[in-house]
């Protein structure tokens, strides 16, 4: 039993390590995510002008912009983890090498580390460039972490689906956004609360529930998506 579990963890870890090694060879996803996010951030900050928005309006509008930047940057880079396997015809080897659930967890860990790295870069820059003050930083960080998890979990399953279809890049946005929409509404609401210093309320429970649901559902259905 212990042996099985450690095998499973070793497989997941190997997938995670492999993805990062591939990533460092080209730095495709990192460059895409970081540059996309940074460019959008500059566009947002520049169009708001040197004075930005009023504090009251900013507290309700700016969280939306932050999450839109993160969502679209994620959509530009996250589907790559599975699309890459199909493009380089390595998917079959991967099917032989790893159990589906370990593979899903490894890919999820890779996507999650990518999103968290992105947030680490974007969130402080965003707060500085649009001069947004956050009253409860603890909640803000928690929402970024849990929201990033939901983003990675939802995207991983959708990426596995679209990798086997045609017109992948556009299809990802079409399929992922309806699934990620509840997440987006929740994190925007929570980020507003963090900015205003209001309590998190039910939305935080629902965010964690969403994360858990999507992860468990992904684990259950990923083998069906992955194995022909």
């Amino acid at each position, binding site marked *: 039993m212990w042996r099985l579990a450690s095998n499973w963890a070793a497989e997941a870890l190997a997938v995670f390590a492999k993805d990062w090694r591939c990533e460092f060879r080209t730095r495709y996803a990192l460059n895409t995510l970081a540059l996309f996010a940074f460019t959008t951030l500059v566009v947002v900050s520049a169009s708001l002008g040197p004075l930005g928005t009023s504090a009251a309006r900013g507290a309700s509008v700016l969280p939306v912009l932050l999450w839109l930047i993160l969502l679209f940057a994620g959509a530009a880079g996250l589907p790559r983890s599975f699309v890459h396997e199909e493009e380089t015809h390595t998917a079959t080897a991967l099917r032989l090498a790893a159990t589906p659930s370990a593979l899903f967890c490894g890919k999820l860990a890779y996507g999650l580390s990518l999103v968290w790295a992105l947030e680490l870069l974007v969130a402080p820059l965003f707060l500085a460039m649009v001069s947004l003050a956050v009253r409860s930083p603890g909640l803000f960080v928690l929402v970024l972490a849990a929201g990033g998890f939901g983003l990675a979990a939802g995207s991983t*399953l959708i990426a596995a*689906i*679209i990798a*086997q*279809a*045609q*017109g992948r890049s556009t*299809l990802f946005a*079409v*399929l992922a*956004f*309806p*699934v990620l*929409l*509840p997440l987006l*509404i*929740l994190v925007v*609401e929570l980020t507003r609360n963090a900015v205003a210093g209001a309590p998190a309320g*039910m*939305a935080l429970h*629902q965010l964690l529930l*969403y994360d858990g*649901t*999507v992860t468990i*559902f992904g684990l259950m*259905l990923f083998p*069906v*998506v992955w194995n*022909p």
Partner: protein
Amino acid sequence: MKTLLPWLLWVWMAVVIWAAFFYSPLAAGFIGQSSRVLFFHVPLAWTAFVGFLAAAVWSARYLFFGRRLRDDRAAAVAVEVGFVFCVLATVTGALWARIMWGAYWNWDPRQTSIILVLIFYGAYLSLRGAVEDGEKRARLAAVYALLGVVVTPFFFFIVPRITYSLHPDSVINSRGEVDMESRMLQVLLAAFAGNAALFFWIHNLQCRLRALAEGKARP
């Protein structure tokens, strides 16, 4: 008997439409005759909901019980026909909103959630369009249909928090009672039965038509 059933359905629907205008009384607190939209809008929405749920059941059956393409076809047709019912529910709702709320569209929570459902199943249909291979298409679409059943309930908690709804109580109100004049309730339930029968009749025809077309394509 089988040829008689569609005729029975036509008569049934004709009687329901007649009853909606001449048998049922008007509900209190509505402008003019606008409450009569109830007998068209609500059954359409319910039937669309039943259709989407049936699509999820057929998808699960495809994935976990035998992988028969028949189940996949049934799921796909259920979403397509359900989509039409859902669009009609949205349009009838918008027409009513123009009379009661003054605008066709004003992002009432009910309008928000129905548009999200339409977007989701639109995405399902475009996924089906993007995969050519029958077995693969069936597998991926079934997973997405099941994902819809898991994700969309979140909207029921989330969307009402954004704004207050002006939408009238559903038939079973928040106190858990049926609060409706009995003649109205009779017509409403009859209309629902008619719409559901119409849905499954169209569904059956479409499935058979598609099975024939696919059989012909494959020698």
